[in-house]
Each structure stands twice: as C-alpha cells, then as structure tokens.
C-alpha cells in the first residue's frame, strides 16, 4: 500500500522567507505526484503535479516542486512567501495503474502560517 509522509505539521515563517515543505512517499513503481492547498474557508485546489518528464515542476503562485525518484521525495518550494500563502498544504500520490482507478493517498498536511 502507498503512504505519504509530510515531515512538518506546523510551519511558521515571516513574509519574504523561503519555504520548503518535505514530502516522501512509499511506492516502488511509477507514480503521479500532487501538491494541493487549502486556504482558510476554501476547498482543496491543485498547486502543481508531476506525472512524467522534467522532474522540476512549476505551479501556481510561484510554487515549484522537485521529484527525486531515488529519494522518493517531492518537496514543495517557494523562494519568497507572502502572507496570503497561509494555508494547509497536502502532498498526495497515486500509483500509475493505467486505468486511473486509484484514488489519491494524502499526507497528513502541513499547516503553514506566514507572519506579516
């Protein structure tokens, strides 16, 4: 079975600081990887995803993530955070099955607070 581990459950940063949120998954085969964000009072929305090709993927709002297959990692980064980045961040994975029948396996989430 797949599992996803997010290392930091709560992160507090000041505006303009750099951000890196860790995500590791356990699955030996081909995977699709996702980062979702949930802003206060809103529903989950996709930040970025990786399924093939360039392991460095860029998403919305200046976020990027790097897939390192040898480390089973998909860390999320942003060079300079803003107060509006305060949210819950979820890493998710599904195993490539061809039929697309697998639901996403999520990590427990990282609650990010940006102090102005």
């Amino acid at each position, binding site marked *: 079975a797949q599992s996803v581990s997010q290392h930091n459950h709560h992160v507090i940063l000041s505006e303009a600081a750099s951000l890196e949120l860790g995500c590791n998954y356990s699955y030996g085969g081909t995977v*699709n990887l996702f980062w979702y964000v949930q802003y206060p009072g809103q529903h989950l929305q996709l930040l970025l995803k990786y*399924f093939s090709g360039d392991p460095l993927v860029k998403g919305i709002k200046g976020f990027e993530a790097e897939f390192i297959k040898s480390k089973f990692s998909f860390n999320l980064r942003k060079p300079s955070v803003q107060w509006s980045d305060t949210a819950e961040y979820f890493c998710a994975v599904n195993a490539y099955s061809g039929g*697309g029948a697998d*639901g*996403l396996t*999520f*990590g427990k*989430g990282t609650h990010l607070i940006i102090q102005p």
Partner: protein
Amino acid sequence: GAGVSQSPRYKVAKRGQDVALRCDPISGHVSLFWYQQALGQGPEFLTYFQNEAQLDKSGLPSDRFFAERPEGSVSTLKIQRTQQEDSAVYLCASRRTGGGADTQYFGPGTRLTVL
C-alpha cells in the same frame, strides 16, 4: 465554469440515523471520487466511479457505507446507522478523464457530526 458542489454543507445526525450526502461533479467529468477527512488528517480515499461503474470501493470502512452514481453524473454517499467515529468531512472530487495523472477537482465537502 461551475465547480464540484456538495450538499448539505453541514449535517448533524444522532447516532443510529441514516444520512445521505450528495455530490454534483463538474459537467462531463468521467471520474468521481469520495474521500473522508478526519480532523487534523489528510483526506482518505473511500471509493471511485468511472461513469456509473463503481470500480473501486476498497476504502469504504464498513458495510454501513454505500455509494452510487446511477446515471454517471450525480453521486450519493449513504451512511447507515451512523456512529460517532463517522464524524468527519466528506469530500467529493471529479476528474475529466479516467487517467490517473489528470487533476482531481474537489468540492467544499460535507461536515458530518454524529452525536
């Protein structure tokens, strides 16, 4: 366009009652998923439909949980004889295709509280 909608947004049930939660996916989306999110946790997969076919129900926690999507659009998640441990946010997501790399779009969720 319109996103995924869910109703009701909040539901309070007494233990032992049956509840029905509705999901309206994005029009034309082939795939539909249900997830359960407990407080302080990430969403956990419950079940998956491709059109009207329920292809995976491995995440349903017990036989009290039942989902259907009879016409391949709207879906209902039914929980019979609710228990306190069923209290959670129930999320629905839809996906345009059957491909696993395609994006899942989430609804706002239904927060179920069982007293």
